């Protein structure tokens, strides 16, 4: 069982991600955000990250830097899956 903040992040981000996909595909924490297996088009990925940034700002009071090297790196990017994105945000809240 995760922490309340982790659960809050998971629920919120899964909800945003699901809402962005027009397909019947069910989004899970394992869903890739980038790469050829990702169901997200580039526009949807940007919209997701913008929504996540607002969530971080307004609800969690942390700054989500979408252009940091760690965020954008293909291999170790926090954008690999929804789970890695959630983990990154939880980590940000722990550093508040």
């Amino acid at each position: 069982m995760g922490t309340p903040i982790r659960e809050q992040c998971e629920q919120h981000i899964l909800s945003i991600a699901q809402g962005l996909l027009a397909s019947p595909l069910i989004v899970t924490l394992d869903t890739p955000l980038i790469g050829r297996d990702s169901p997200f088009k580039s526009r949807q990925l940007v919209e997701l990250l913008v929504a996540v940034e607002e969530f971080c700002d307004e609800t969690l009071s942390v700054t989500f830097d979408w252009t940091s090297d760690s965020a954008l790196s293909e291999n170790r990017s926090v954008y690999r899956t929804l789970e890695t994105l959630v983990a990154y945000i939880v980590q940000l809240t722990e550093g508040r």
Partner: protein
Amino acid sequence: MNKTLLITGASRGLGYHLAQRATEDGYRVIGLARHTLPEASFEIRLCDVSDPAAVKQVMSSFKREKTLYGLINAAGIASMNLTLLMPTQTIERLVAVNLLGTIYCSQMVGWLLARQKQGRIINFSTIAVHLALKGEAVYAASKAGVESFSRTFAREMAEHGTTVNVLAPGPIDTDLIAKVSSERIQEVVNQQVISRKAIPEDVYQTVKWLLSEEAAMISGEIIHLGGV
């Protein structure tokens, strides 16, 4: 008008003229520059566009700016010299300000405009790219990079309602060409379709149109002021 424009290189030359005129036309202009300008009629924030951390810091301050509409990347430097005689430091500085500065600002503002789902980005190149002018290889290379970047970035930003275009003027009387001889300038002007030097207002009128709703279908274009 409730639209905010960010204009780099706004403390002098073409950037200053664009910032002044856009302010007169009702835009809220925020100039980005390395130096303050107390007499300016618009706000200036200090920023060296070749420093990605500085660009990120300044641009992040506009996250909550709901009226942000456009970015004009007017910051630029020139150094006319044969490549074989150009110091490495000058080469690096030309690429850092002209090309990387444009990319850094476009990337950061691109995120902000994606939130608004609309916007305009206007970058600057030069007629020297098209004419392959001797003595301007590095300067032209940095600007050719701007053109190439902008054409592709336009495709990436189209789905976010933002157009990206490039203005590539011939010689204009600003500090940028102050050290170039009048004979050399005339040689370049003679190669344009319209054989006269442009004035900053020629550039502004084109910028004004690109910013307008009427230019919503114009993106990924390189506009040669004066014609080539």
